[in-house]
């Protein structure tokens, strides 16, 4: 797997722990089922705790157990299954501030969707990266620079741009109306 964010490839500081595997040292991503039992141990030794969620996870059930979780990884079994986008958005809407990682065979064209839903990074299979090198991911991300949805992505939405220009012209009018 390869880890990417909006600036390109990055090193993965977390170790992903499988269901039956022993708990390694350092920062780890645990399956949801092991989070409650072993999460405290990871935190106690001063390491960062990550949780991996299937895309069938229920927002209301997982939200209460994510307090000390520094990273949430969300499964995408296929690029066409968009449940992970709503899980991420739902967590952000509820106030989750840690790292959000999409895990699975997303394609370059979906980096925009991932970031727009509150993901910070994507962990994608090497087979996808082999066909779609990093240059395609950054090109796809730069293709669409605007969005209508408020709160989606980092920059202002089109609606907020319009509001800002309305306010600016309102202030200009006020400035003109005031005596010098």
């Amino acid at each position, binding site marked *: 797997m390869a880890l990417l964010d909006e600036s390109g490839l990055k090193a993965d500081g977390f170790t992903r722990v499988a269901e039956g595997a022993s708990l390694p040292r350092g920062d780890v991503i645990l399956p949801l089922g092991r989070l409650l039992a072993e999460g405290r141990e990871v935190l106690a030794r001063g390491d960062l705790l990550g949780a991996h969620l299937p895309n069938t996870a229920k*927002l*209301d059930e997982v939200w209460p157990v994510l307090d000390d979780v520094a990273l949430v990884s969300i499964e995408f079994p296929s*690029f*066409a*299954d*968009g*449940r992970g*986008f*709503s*899980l991420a*958005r*739902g967590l952000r*809407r*509820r106030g989750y501030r840690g790292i959000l990682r999409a895990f699975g065979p997303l*394609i*370059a*064209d979906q980096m*925009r*969707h*991932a*970031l*727009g*839903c509150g993901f910070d990074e994507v962990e994608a299979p090497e087979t996808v990266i082999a*066909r*779609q090198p990093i240059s*395609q991911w950054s*090109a*796809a991300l730069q*293709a*669409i*620079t*605007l*969005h*209508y*949805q*408020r*709160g*989606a*992505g980092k920059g202002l939405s*089109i*609606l907020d*741009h*319009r*509001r800002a220009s*309305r306010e600016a012209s309102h202030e200009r009018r006020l400035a003109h109306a005031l005596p010098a």
Partner: protein
Amino acid sequence: MYRYDEFDARFVRERVREFRAQVERRLDGSLTEDEFKPLRLQNGLYLQLHAYMLRIAIPYGTLSSRQLRQLALIGDRYDRGYGHFTTRQNLQFNWPKLKDVPDILDLLADVEMHAIQTSGNCIRNVTADHFAGVAADEVEDPRPTAELIRQWSSLHPEFSFLPRKFKIAVTGAEHDRAAIKAHDIGLRIRRHPATGETGYEVIVGGGLGRTPMIGKVAREFLPKADLLAYLEAIMRVYNLEGRRDNKFKARVKILVHEIGEQEFRRRVEAEFAALDGPSVNADPEEVKRIADYFAPPPYEELPEQSVKLSIARAAHRDFERFVETNVSGHRVPGYVAVTISLKPIGGVPGDATSEQMRIIAELAERHSFGEIRVTHMQNLVLPHVRKDELFALWEALDAAELATANAGLVTDIISCPGLDYCSLATARSIPIAQSLSRRFADGARQREIGPLGIKISGCINACGHHHIGNIGILGLEKNGAEYYQLTLGGDATEKAALGERLGPGLAAEEVPDAVEKIVGVYLEKRAPGEEFIATYRRIGIAPFRQAFEPVLEGAQRGVA
């Protein structure tokens, strides 16, 4: 009409450029066919039986004459000189080449149009009442709401990979001309009974297809300001909970049905409560900015009656018939809305040649402030015609063979493209529409029968809306033979109802006789002034079944 600002214009251009690169990446192998498919579908590009098909969005069915001329040009340059208007107020070109599609999209962007989300598992092009802003029974114009939803849903990062397609329709009138109860979400603008404030009745979970359902009320009254946050809540619940194991059970109607209306409503309200509404919703000034584009055109102050019109009606029988069927009332005195039927006798429902599009564009400029509407009945409308210019308009339409006086009558047939074009179809639908149209060609007979909607689909996906046709016809296939199932009593209006099956399937050539029998029963049993659907409701299906029997006996039954 809405006009793009700098942001809308740049957004659409960027999508064209993105798509151009996606086509190149498909051709060089960066994208597999599986990966490319949803990307092209989200840009309206289907692979059909014989070629690609490009479906162009006509948001809420509103077109300017300039846009219609551009569609004519695209039809000439990249297709075979015609286009096909669909039941979702869109336009389809059936013969574009993949390599030309990005250039077509650029031509569309030149006139503030696109093909964004006319297909794929995403929020589709939003539809609305074709008499929006014109109808006398309107609480409020639905187009600003539809435009707001168009923008909000465009390339939505969260809702572009839904379990299945998602269709939204809006009406602002009492009489539902947008079939809102047959959509995933239907919005009806209404006044709050106590406060008089305008808001929405929100209907969820309607839809046709294999499992047709009439939508259920999710919210009696949603304040206008909360629209986008509430839509986001519905979409999030659907995206997370909608079934993905079976594409025929993946629409929101199945989710609503399986967990129940109450539970669905509870989940949506819980999600809505978890949202910070003001950070999601459009601010009132943005809503006003959009609404201002839909200000009425500069109407003249005219008397309600036109002497000129009365004289012409008395003098020309064909014109009089056209006025009776194809002309609708207008909220402004002295004006009418005119339906241009794209259902000539024996023609292909919804088809228009580039030449016809140019003629209609010119007539719109001369008589309708340059505005044209596309109806879900696959016709066009000139929404603002002066009564005293109506005769001149009719003469021009008649000269171009565009004055078929059959709007709402038995030959105003809705039909999907069917097996002549579509790779999903199980049977042909266009030839059935044509044979029925010829059978009932006589104008006097059509007028005697009165309003009667026939809707034909070439497969269970129901693009021809057969379930909500007064007479619905569904084309199926068994052992290599096409056959047709008839349903009666469907209704697309605010009294929405699904049709009931009449009996076993028929061969194509038996369909006109069967419809003839149905019409016969109606004519015999109707009370004075009673429309087909009212008679059907009163007497039920039994008398129609009785009359249907001889048609069945007369034919070899090879099919169920």
